[in-house]
């Protein structure tokens, strides 16, 4: 085992631990603001995974688009909701049923449980899906030995990654590229319309319309 192998092992281990640890923060943090900040760390970790995979363009895009735009958008959204809405409340039936002397012992578990519901179903579904995926991966690895066609990875000759990706988007993947831009446009216009102040309010008549029947 050479030194580069050890370095790759160590790098993968560190990046994977960082990613999974901050993902744990996302699913356990009680306040949504904290969960969003943990998500920021997770996205940095995923960017590190992309770098390990040799996808340098994706590494940059992950940081610019995900960390720089999507997370900031989520943080703005969390802050637009008022403060008591971002703090998930302890369910009332739990608060009343726990005796005072047990409160210290169960405090930590309750702290994490407070932001959740249907925990048993979530655990069963997530663990079951994980087992199924791992079984499938193991099966495929055992049968095909991952007929790895390019074991050395994306060591391709000529041009940079970004040049080849740009080429691919304007030739072979032109249609998905254009459709994605149309989807982006529609989504942004739709988001503006949905989030407008007077949308979704059906029961109240429009009182401030000039010339309406509500004028005195």
């Amino acid at each position: 085992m050479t030194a580069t192998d050890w370095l790759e092992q160590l790098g993968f281990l560190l990046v994977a631990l960082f990613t999974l640890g901050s993902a744990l923060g996302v699913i356990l943090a009680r306040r949504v603001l904290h969960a969003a900040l943990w998500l920021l760390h997770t996205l940095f970790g995923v960017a590190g995974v992309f770098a390990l995979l040799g996808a340098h363009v994706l590494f940059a895009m992950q940081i610019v688009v995900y960390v720089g735009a999507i997370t900031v958008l989520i943080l703005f959204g969390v802050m637009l909701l008022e403060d008591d809405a971002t703090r998930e409340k302890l369910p009332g039936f739990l608060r009343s049923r726990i005796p005072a002397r047990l409160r210290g012992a169960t405090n930590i578990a309750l702290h994490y449980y407070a932001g959740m519901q249907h925990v048993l179903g979530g655990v069963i579904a997530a663990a079951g899906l994980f087992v199924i995926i791992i079984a499938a991966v193991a099966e495929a690895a055992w049968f095909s030995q991952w007929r790895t066609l390019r074991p050395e990875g994306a060591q391709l000759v000529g041009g940079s990654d970004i040049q080849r990706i740009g080429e691919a988007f304007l030739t072979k993947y032109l249609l998905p590229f254009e459709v994605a831009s149309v989807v982006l446009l529609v989504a942004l216009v739709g988001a503006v319309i949905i989030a407008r102040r007077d949308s979704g309010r059906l029961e109240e008549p429009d009182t401030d319309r000039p010339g309406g029947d509500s004028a005195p």
Partner: protein
Amino acid sequence: MTLPPVGLTHYLVLGAMLFCMGLFAVMTRRHAVAVLLGIELMLNAANINLIAISRFLSPHEGALALGGQAFALIVMTLAACEVAIGLAIIVCLYRNRGIVNPDEAADMKW
């Protein structure tokens, strides 16, 4: 002690873990924005899988070998759309109804 070299299986297992954590967040969180964060985790897990499979198993050369990366870029675009629309719906729901728990918004449930 010799560990196996970092290969496709490592990345697929990492993606599976991240996806299941995202699924857990989607199913259990009481706040709609936290559910959105879980969806982001799942999309990132899918991106890891796409890029890993494209790197290790792609039979192509040149521009075609980057199919997984191109696909991941499109997934990122759609994730941005999804976050914008989702946040708009959540803010609208909270402003008009005072609801942030997705389980409470069950008016259309049969």
